[in-house]
């Protein structure tokens, strides 16, 4: 993949034109959040610069128009996931969505939840707080031990909390098989798809998933808007976490009737402009096509991994060569004491924006690394040239910082 295979027009992304001390920025922190296209910002401005009414409250004209656009976003997500509109709940982000499910299922400490060792904290801590968790092991290469997962299912867990794609390694798990096995033992299946929905088409009509969640900001959309899909049967059983305006049909002095799903989970004024933005973001991705997005993700993922493997001074996290890998790679630099400094130099001297730290997956990195890691993660506007530039910069500074 070279620059001739760019999926997006770089002029759509003002962030790509930003310079740092005269150097054009290379943005490689997409697993944290992506850059935003003008079309998405324009859609949000349409709300903020128009009659920025509330939604679903009263009968004024602008409120009707705004409510239509807000609900259009819900239908757009339903179309993206192949589910029904009433199975789509808008929340703040993936973290809030998993917290809602973990709390709303009303688990006890007797209920077992299987969690992946490489899970993001957001798919670990809510379960740790509300139930008894069992972690799926990792093997010596740093990959999930799938045989351990299947053996754990024999304990008939109440919930299986799957991480579809690791935010540390970019490795996808075999979702269909894992979901199917979990359903065979009667578990409720919850999928953190924050790292996968932006890159790959997920068809929920072909998967027996109870809950799935992702965030708009990792797929060209705005921050502050997350999506929870809930199978309508399970969603109907879930206890709302927030109570207040907009989520009830009727209120007496001592009782209330909940509204139907999904509205009962959206108490208070929602992120209306965010819904406009998410619609525009999904339109942008659909115009490119998810087949091309997935191909780009796989190709660039393979390239990232191979380039990292060429460097002896790096230790890649999850060195399973045959892994189903997206465009993310994380690595340690065993001879570098302080990766904060490395990330700072990459940023300030080379204008390369990447991530360092424990990547909100501290238990996993404690198992497979000796501390912090550096992560390069790409999205649709990145090319092999960006990857080359990043590794070339690392090679240069290695002379001075790693030996």
């Amino acid at each position, binding site marked *: 993949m070279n620059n001739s295979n760019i999926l997006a027009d770089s002029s759509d992304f003002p962030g790509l034109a930003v310079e740092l001390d005269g150097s054009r920025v290379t943005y490689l922190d997409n697993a944290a959040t992506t850059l935003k296209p003008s079309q998405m910002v324009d859609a949000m401005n349409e709300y903020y610069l128009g009659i920025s009414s509330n939604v679903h409250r009263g009968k004024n*004209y602008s409120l*009707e128009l705004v*409510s239509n656009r807000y609900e259009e976003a819900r239908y757009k997500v339903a179309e993206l996931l192949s589910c029904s*509109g009433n199975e789509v709940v808008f929340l703040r982000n993936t973290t809030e969505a998993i917290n809602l499910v973990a709390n709303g299922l009303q688990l006890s400490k007797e209920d077992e939840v299987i969690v992946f060792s490489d899970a993001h904290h957001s798919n670990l801590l809510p379960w740790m707080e509300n139930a008894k968790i069992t972690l799926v092991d990792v093997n010596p290469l740093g990959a999930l031990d799938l045989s351990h997962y299947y053996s754990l299912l024999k304990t008939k867990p109440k919930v299986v909390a799957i991480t579809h794609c690791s935010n540390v390694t970019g490795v996808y798990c075999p979702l269909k098989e894992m979901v199917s096995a979990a359903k065979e033992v009667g578990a409720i299946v919850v999928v953190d798809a924050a790292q996968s929905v932006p890159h790959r088409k997920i068809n929920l*009509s072909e998967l027996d998933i109870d809950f799935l969640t992702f965030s708009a900001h990792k797929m060209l959309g705005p921050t502050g808007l997350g999506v929870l899909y809930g199978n*309508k049967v399970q969603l109907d059983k879930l206890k709302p976490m927030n109570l207040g305006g907009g989520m009830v*049909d*009727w209120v007496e002095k001592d009782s209330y009737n909940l509204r139907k799903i999904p509205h009962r989970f959206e108490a208070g004024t929602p992120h209306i402009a965010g819904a406009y933005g998410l619609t525009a973001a999904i339109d942008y991705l659909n115009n490119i096509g998810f087949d091309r997005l997935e191909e780009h993700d796989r190709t660039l993922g393979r390239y990232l991994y191979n380039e990292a493997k060429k460097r002896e001074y790096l230790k890649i996290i999850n060195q399973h060569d045959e892994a189903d890998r997206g465009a993310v790679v994380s690595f340690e630099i065993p001879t570098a004491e302080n990766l904060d400094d490395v990330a700072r130099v990459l940023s300030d001297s080379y204008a390369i924006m990447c991530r360092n730290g424990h990547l909100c997956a501290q238990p996993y990195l404690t198992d497979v690394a000796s501390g912090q890691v550096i992560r390069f993660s790409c999205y649709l506007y990145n090319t092999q040239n960006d990857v080359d530039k990043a590794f070339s910069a690392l090679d240069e500074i290695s002379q001075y910082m790693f030996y």
Partner: protein
Amino acid sequence: MNNDINRFDGFIKEVEYAYENVPFYKKKLDDLGIKLDAIKAESFSEQLPLTEKKDYRKNFPMGVLAKGFSLNHPMLNKSQSSGTTGERLVTFEIGMNLLNRAIACTRSFPVISDVFLEKGRKICRYAAPNCSDVECANPHSTMDDRLLTDGTLVLPVYHDLLTTSELLIDRAIEEIIAFKPDLYYVDPTHFAFLARQFKKRNIELPVAPVVTSYSAATAVSRRQISDAFANGNPIAEFLSSSEMGWLAMECPHGNLHLNEESYFFEFISLNLDMRGESSLFELCITSIDQGALPHIRYKTGDIVSLGESQCDCQNNNRVIRMEGRTTHFVNQNGDFVLSPKQVDDLISDPEWLDLYQFEQKSELRFTLKAIVNECYQAGDERTVIDRLIKNLKSNSEIKIDIVDYISSERSGKFQSVKGLGLNE
């Protein structure tokens, strides 16, 4: 010829009534310097202005209500259109005028007219909830809450039709069986959905004539409604508007006859290249019964074509074909290509298809979402796609998606064809 003269006399009488009783018309005609006695049958369309929805919205209530009426007047009925596209409107009219318009309209289909006029007849309505906010389809409502004074039971349904819960579907079915309707007054997409639910539960839909309105009846909806009953159960599509009432009704021969006893109709040409087919017109209506809120030369936004002048039924009123609204027409590179009705003709009513939505994504890209049934076999859609492609511009692409769900509009209506629309 006598009919034409009578129609024009009724029209002029309404214009005079409006000028003398309605502030909006008096000001409008005075501003234009129009003298009523100078209006002639051969030139009125050049003299009198057309009106549109925004005129009635902007001037409501004081500008458009006739002298002697207030919104609390005991003879008035209120109606409101959904405003899906921001074009919402609240209208009041004398209840008796609306009833007379409906009675006149049903004469196109005598069996339905008989039922409609029967004393104590019971009607079941199954259509989008009658307001555009999400609380309207409240699952806690009871049958009594939804029984209207004219004997119509409004059945419960969600705004987003296909998300209607099993609980609400069961309730609608139970209520129909308990209520024993004499007439179904339904949105065809909604009623086809309900017919599928009856079939799924192995329950027979109680027999009664069906009139469909609110949105165009696609061939697949019509097939499913028809299949739900024994042969010969009357089914008629009719055209109505929230602001005017019953405008046209299908006769037993399948022709949609205008209700010319209740309105004065005009056809405003759209001047589109129709490739040799009959021209398209916007339907324009004038009320002629001196009501509370007269409409003069009102552009409905409904696009029609004119049918054969002679029908085998006894109704001599003109025949129209509803083509859809210009906002949903398929438009490629600025050229009109297909109306929603023409798209539906091409899709037709294959046995394997339950519901579809044909959407134009860009000049050349289209998607056809299809909800299919047990008769479907892989590749069945090919003939439909081929028919559509032949009628679109070269290099057009249609992506077929076999799905379980297609969303309704937020108003609750279901739009089967969503073109880019005409640039007016």
